[in-house]
């Protein structure tokens, strides 16, 4: 898949209590120069420091540093179209879906407008509640549909789970939760949530990320970008995200991005030094093993 030229949107899905609002609050705190546009169903419990609010009306709050928060009510697409018109343009939109929304349906709808594209779908589940919720007579099917359409699933509030090994055993036998990443306090670094934003500006740097490991892989030879992207996003490595430049066998430079099983490949206008940042979690393979595997597989499959 090639990247649409519009604004990247990360859809954050999850039932009530999964920690979506905390995640959004964290993102705002950590934005650190990134101009984030946050779309929420309701302002409700957004904890924005009064001092940081530059202006506020019924539907939008502008925050010092260039971030904005918007409530979309019943017109998500119109809100997205309006956000894309903002000057300066946001770098990234985080869309907090309602607790019963089906994110794949939102993605299909967003595909209708040219202003934005869905970069990834991130699901949060309440690790302590999820087993009960998945047998709830009203919301089980809704929550299952949410996590099934996610690229990354975070089992949040893992600190509240009493019997961790029991949870891990259950999750590993309950796809798609077998690939879930355990976190607490919705503590997910922006590089993980939104993709590594700095790659390509200078030499690729592996960011330091709590709870996650990150490494830079530098391909030793030109490769087939599609096969390589499929490898990075495949079930074998279970990587969280990757982003970087590679040299294709055709001699051109490609930008590759993956999140979970989703990948994007785009021809780069500039010639970049090859190098791909890999981000993994505890559920991925060990970092050194991953690097070794990529090397082996690259050779073996003639990538």
């Amino acid at each position, binding site marked *: 898949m090639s990247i649409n030229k519009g604004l990247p949107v990360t859809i954050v899905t999850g039932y*009530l209590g999964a920690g979506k609002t905390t995640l959004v609050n964290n993102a705002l705190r950590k934005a650190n120069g990134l101009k984030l546009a946050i779309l929420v169903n309701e302002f*409700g419990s957004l904890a924005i420091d009064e001092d940081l609010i530059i202006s506020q009306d019924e539907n939008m709050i502008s925050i010092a540093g260039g971030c904005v928060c918007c409530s979309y*009510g019943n017109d998500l697409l*119109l809100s997205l*179209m309006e956000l894309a018109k903002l000057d300066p343009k946001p770098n990234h939109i985080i869309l907090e879906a309602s607790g*019963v929304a089906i994110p794949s349906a939102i993605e299909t709808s967003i595909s209708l407008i040219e202003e934005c594209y869905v970069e990834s779908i991130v699901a949060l589940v309440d690790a302590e509640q999820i087993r009960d919720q998945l047998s709830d007579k*009203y*919301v089980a099917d*809704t929550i299952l549909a949410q996590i099934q359409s996610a690229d990354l699933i975070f089992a949040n509030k893992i600190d509240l789970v009493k019997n961790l090994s029991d949870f891990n055993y259950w999750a590993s036998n309950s796809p798609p939760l077998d690939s879930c990443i355990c976190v607490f306090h919705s503590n997910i670094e922006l590089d993980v949530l939104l993709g590594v934003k700095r790659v390509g500006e200078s030499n690729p740097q592996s960011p330091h990320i709590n709870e996650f490991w990150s490494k830079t892989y530098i391909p030793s030879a030109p490769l087939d970008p599609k096969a390589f992207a499929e490898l990075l996003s495949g079930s074998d490595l279970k990587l969280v995200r990757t982003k970087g430049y590679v040299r294709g066998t055709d001699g051109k430079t490609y930008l590759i991005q993956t999140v979970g099983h989703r990948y994007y490949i785009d021809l780069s206008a500039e010639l970049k030094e090859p190098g791909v940042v890999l981000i993994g979690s505890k559920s991925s393979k060990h970092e050194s093993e991953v690097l070794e595997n990529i090397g082996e597989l690259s050779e073996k499959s003639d990538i």
Partner: protein
Amino acid sequence: MIVIYSAKKIITMNPAKPIASYVAVKDGKVLGTGNLEELQKWGEFRLDTTFEDKIIMPGFVEGHAHTMEGTFWRYVYCGFFDRMDPDGNTWSGAKTIDTVVQRLKEAESKLTDPEAPLSGWQLDPIYMDNKRVSCKDLDKVSSTRPIGVLHASGHIMNVNSKALEIGGLMKTGINHPGIPLDEDGYPTGELYGPDAMTPIGVHVGFNRSMTDSDEQGLVAFGKLCVRAGVTTVTDLAARLTEDGVDSMLRITNQESYPATVVPLKVFLGATPKETVDLAVSLKKKTTDRLKLGRIKAVADGSIQGFSARMRWPGYYNGAPNGLWYTAPDQLSELYRLALEAGVQVHTHTNGDEATEMALDMLEGALKANPSPDHRFTLQHCQLADLAQFRRMKKLDMCVNLFANHHFYWGDEHYRLTVGPDRALRMNACSTALTTGVPMAIHSDAPVTPLGPLFTAWCAVNRITASGRVQGEAEKIAAKDALYAITLGAAYTLHMDNEVGSIETGKRADFAVLEDDPYSVDPENLKDVKVWGTVQGGRIFDAKSL
């Protein structure tokens, strides 16, 4: 000044004095009913004989409508059935696509701005052998002006090529369940569901605030009320922005405004607490003709749109289960906070699983906050079964059933959506009565036309558009239907102390009729002519609006 009105017959709905020939009115309220001798003792009076040959009933109460119908009448009416506009002109139903196109062409020729969009409403190809309408049909009207026609259900829209082009959808490769494609790979121009409709809707006159009536629309809606004998009407899913409330206050406070409007704040885009707080603060702005401080929640979608939440075995045609519009936990919190604050909540439930969910959530909330006389009401509640009605009774709930829906879409439900067994019990008015659940019946205007006598006819006869009686067992008597459109609906709004019957102390709200709905053959109930209304003692003659 006391005015005593004479009438051929006054049906009061007051059991102590059910029939009278005179009614005395002072300060917009009823002093009393009876004969002239009884009434003249109140003091000096003027006798008004305007209604001498008319039948007077309590003004009708429409418990589920949307004032946006007033705005829609500025668009082109494309419905299949004859329908009267606010000015009293009856638009004949458009029976074929060609007629729809012709009608749009006529409207188009009157537009002077070459780029102005053209909007139509109430299209329903179900009655035209389910023939699909495409952008090519609408292109015959204009290829240079964007055109959009909303379907009667409100869930589908047809647009022309120009509208697709402006909205950026005139391309191949679209992969969206709400946007069917032609053989050539381009969209057919049919847009299903709000997500597909929104990006184009804004270009064809249907924008974000579509559910809000503008001032001109609210005035037009008032006229529709007079023509239907309605003196109290709900606006069941209002956004109630600050400007919106100001505008509603301004219009309804005009001395010439003929109805009391009851807008319910829709629970959307705000937390349960914010919504309840807003309802509490809005309550203070209530006036005689604008009653604020109630909430409307929406649990699920629609049955014909397959977005209603169904219990086993689901849809008859095998469509997957519908969608929650509000999470159970959110509804539970809303109920709990609303009960605590004394704010009434009406909840839209279409599928029987949505009804079950609302019952469960209210039961829990009531255990936390026992609240005598809360009158929380289920709206539509089309598929509830006997067991669910028993629970409603136990939980002191009210119900407002969608009797009109049975006429317009009953055949579709029988054949396609829910199948015969459940179609027969849809909008179970008789079950509501036998289980003792306080009941109203409604039009959901503009989805179906505002007209409580027609709604009563639907509940009494249960005839579908094709002429079949569907669900003999759920028919109700005319007197029960007439109660449902007056006191029954007033009760669901906590307004039975103010309106719904003609008796001492209540507002002087009358439906003035040409015939006696209690004497006509129940099959002709819908044909009883409305002369106009009296609202708060003010006379509104439908002929001279």
